[in-house]
């Protein structure tokens, strides 16, 4: 049942050792187009002298075993995924010649999106698409290219447009895209057409050798076994039925307009990694920051307000400065139901020990920048804890008597500084002053890390100082 390849190209193995059974013949049926197309490709690889650079993608389908034959690098892939795998290998080895070879089920059905997207990205690969209007490998089921009226094992009464739609015309589709540089449909019927196949194969490969772009060659091909015909009948059926449905010709070719270029290897940089990755390399953790009073140690902080008040930024500033002060720190924006209702909150922990739960269920510190936040979290604060609230926006003081409370008109003070949005830094100043958790200079050192607009840094420093001064002045009243 197997066809012998007579004059063997050097890009074929002399003996097909990967194959079981007879190792001098392919596994393809007599009259099958796959063997002929293989031969034309192998000869082209020989003639271009690219055997050592070629990587062949063997698809799922009858050509799954292409790696038995082609003496080139080979990747056997999942059904329909050849263009995605080809993308992966070509991107890592742009110097290589990648051939993606697919049947119609593989390319036009299960892998339809993969081929369209690879074509549209203009991957610099060569695609050979065997269209035999049937699933050969699995025994003759309908393919997306099966003709209307064609009987297959899954269209026993013939394909109907009503049930299965019309045959998919891939060259027509792909040639509408901007990226592909060459799209042609050819047919393995008579010697004249076969020589056109040979030319198309070479052109599609040359395009890649010259690093020009995505080339797509659809090859109409007989599947006598799937069609349940003799080889001779199959050839005639192609001429009578397939060719009228799938017109031959060049659908797109802009390759001449493109200049050839070098296929160069990927070069990785390994120098200056810290700089490129924005990783600090200079010592930035202090070891000389004195401990605060016991009641202010290891704070678990909830910061809450409405969106736009810079709550997350305040938490970040605290965590960044806390880290530089030598604490273990964590910062997490609120998750889940708490996120709703236009409020923003985050949890920050500064600790001398490794931090367990990064979420704060019983805060030792609550920073409330609006009334809903105060109302929501006040009851959760640990006895002996601390509540700081913006008294310019919240005109009722917390009810708790077992916690320390500081009302600070942060928004009003920020307005006086000319920028409402700086209220968060006033609160940060107040917090460090009241607790002594870290000195001002640590916070000031940290500012450039979490403030994007460098020209706002002096204003932020001023705000922190205002917050600290407020606490100093009102100490005892807090």
């Amino acid at each position, binding site marked *: 049942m197997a066809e012998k390849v007579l004059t063997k190209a050097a890009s074929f193995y002399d003996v097909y050792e990967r194959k079981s059974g007879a190792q001098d013949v392919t596994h393809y049926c007599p009259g099958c187009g796959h063997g002929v197309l293989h031969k034309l490709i192998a000869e082209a690889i020989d003639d271009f002298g690219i055997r050592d650079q070629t990587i062949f993608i063997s698809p799922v389908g009858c050509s799954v075993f292409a790696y038995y034959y082609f003496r080139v690098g*080979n*990747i056997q892939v999942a059904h329909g995924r050849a263009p995605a*795998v080809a993308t992966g290998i070509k*991107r*890592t080895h742009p110097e290589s010649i990648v051939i993606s070879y697919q049947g119609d089920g593989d390319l036009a059905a299960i892998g339809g999106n993969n081929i369209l*997207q690879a074509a549209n990205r203009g991957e610099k690969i060569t695609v050979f698409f065997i269209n035999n209007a049937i699933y050969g490998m699995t025994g003759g089921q309908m393919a997306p290219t099966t003709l209307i009226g064609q009987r297959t094992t899954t269209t026993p009464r013939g394909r109907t447009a009503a049930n299965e739609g019309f045959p998919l015309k891939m060259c027509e589709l792909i040639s509408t895209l901007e990226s592909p540089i060459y799209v042609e449909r050819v047919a393995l019927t008579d010697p004249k057409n076969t020589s056109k196949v040979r030319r198309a194969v070479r052109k599609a490969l040359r395009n890649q050798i010259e690093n020009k772009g995505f080339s797509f060659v659809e090859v109409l091909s007989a599947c006598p076994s799937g069609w349940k015909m003799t080889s001779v009948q199959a050839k005639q059926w192609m001429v009578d039925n397939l060719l009228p449905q799938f017109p031959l010709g060049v659908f797109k070719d802009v390759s001449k307009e493109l200049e050839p270029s070098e296929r160069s290897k990927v070069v*990785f940089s390994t120098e200056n*990694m810290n700089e490129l990755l924005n990783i600090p*390399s200079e010592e930035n953790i202090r070891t000389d920051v004195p401990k605060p009073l016991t009641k202010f140690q290891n704070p678990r902080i909830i910061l809450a307000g409405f969106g736009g008040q810079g709550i997350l930024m305040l938490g970040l500033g605290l965590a960044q400065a806390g880290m530089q002060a030598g604490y273990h720190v964590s910062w997490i924006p609120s*998750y889940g139901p708490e996120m709703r209702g236009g409020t923003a909150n985050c949890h920050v922990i500064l600790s001398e020990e490794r931090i367990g739960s990064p979420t704060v269920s019983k805060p030792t510190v609550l920073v409330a920048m609006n009334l809903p936040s105060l109302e929501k979290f006040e009851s959760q604060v640990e006895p002996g804890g601390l509540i700081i609230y913006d008294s310019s926006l919240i005109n009722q003081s917390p009810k708790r008597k077992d916690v320390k409370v500081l009302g600070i008109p942060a928004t009003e003070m920020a307005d006086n500084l000319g920028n409402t949005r700086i209220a968060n830094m006033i609160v940060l100043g107040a917090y460090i002053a009241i607790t002594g958790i870290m000195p001002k200079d640590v916070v000031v050192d940290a500012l450039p890390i979490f403030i994007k607009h460098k020209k706002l840094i002096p204003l932020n420093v001023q705000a922190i100082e205002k917050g600290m001064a407020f606490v100093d002045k009102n100490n005892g009243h807090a």
Partner: protein
Amino acid sequence: MAKQLIKGNEAIVKGAILAGCRFYFGYPITPASEIAEAAAYYMPLVGGTFLQGESEVASIQMLYGAASGGVRCMTASSSPGISLKQEGISYSAGSELPLVLIDIMRGGPGLGNIAPEQGDYNQMVKGGGHGNYKLIVLAPNCAQEMCDLTMLAFELADKYRNPAVILADGFIGQMMEPVEFPAPVTELPEKPWAIHADKNDETRLICSIELEPEVLEAHNRHLQEKYAEAEKNEVRFEEYRIDGADFVLVGYGVVSRVLQTTVDLLRDQGHRVGLLRPITLWPFPGKRIVELSDSVDSFMVVELSNGQMVDDVRLAVNGKKPVHFYNRMGGMVPSPEEIADQAVKFLED
């Protein structure tokens, strides 16, 4: 010391690049998109490639291609996206391709939500795709480990020629913590099997098909031997206050962080409680649990799922001691107090 306050998701990308990874193929999904975004930003700066594939199905196949070419490569996704990647994962395991997958788990099943869950344990640890394969699965619980374990994942993937996974949750991904980044890896392992498009590898083949049952069985035996080797060498776990404990909490990822606080709460109440945190979910620290089941009275497994890892704990304990289970799902994360209350109930039972 130089530290950076950074989100876990971003620490993954920097760790990957420091480990020599220069190829990222992925498809966006919350809560893993930040990984794609950081990769899109940093990869080109270090001569690498970032490509947004057309789907998760395609992205993992792009990795299949890249890994065939011998480079370190990665992708990241979240639960529904991982379900789609299972095809390529099975093929990669079959073809023995080293690649690194990040799963920032979210609520399920179906579209679920974007809050943290641990419902992907089974599909990663037990193999969500077809065939007799295992993935190396690492479960970080802090930003530092998002970096360190990602680097380790690349090393183990190469060492065992197998996909390796970082299984984390939205919590660990979103949280910012200090990370001290290690020096970049400069020596990458040779890959004599990989396809480089040069004279030496014209006959190399990356392949998962094998028609002959005998040969495919032999290949499967080879895979199992490899897995046995990994089980011998790569089990990693961490313990907290386990000395003298007679009640052992077991949890991974963000849960292990909550459990650390739970242990402190319970110890303060006078209970002799400790914590075992698997760092490798596969290979699972079952041996350690077998040992513990001799000395402790009972276990309590806590998961953000319907109970997936608990099966592995029960398998190891093998009926010797009670294994209690407490869970939250749908994106709910229990507080240390909530778990402590539950533990006390089990303890007093």
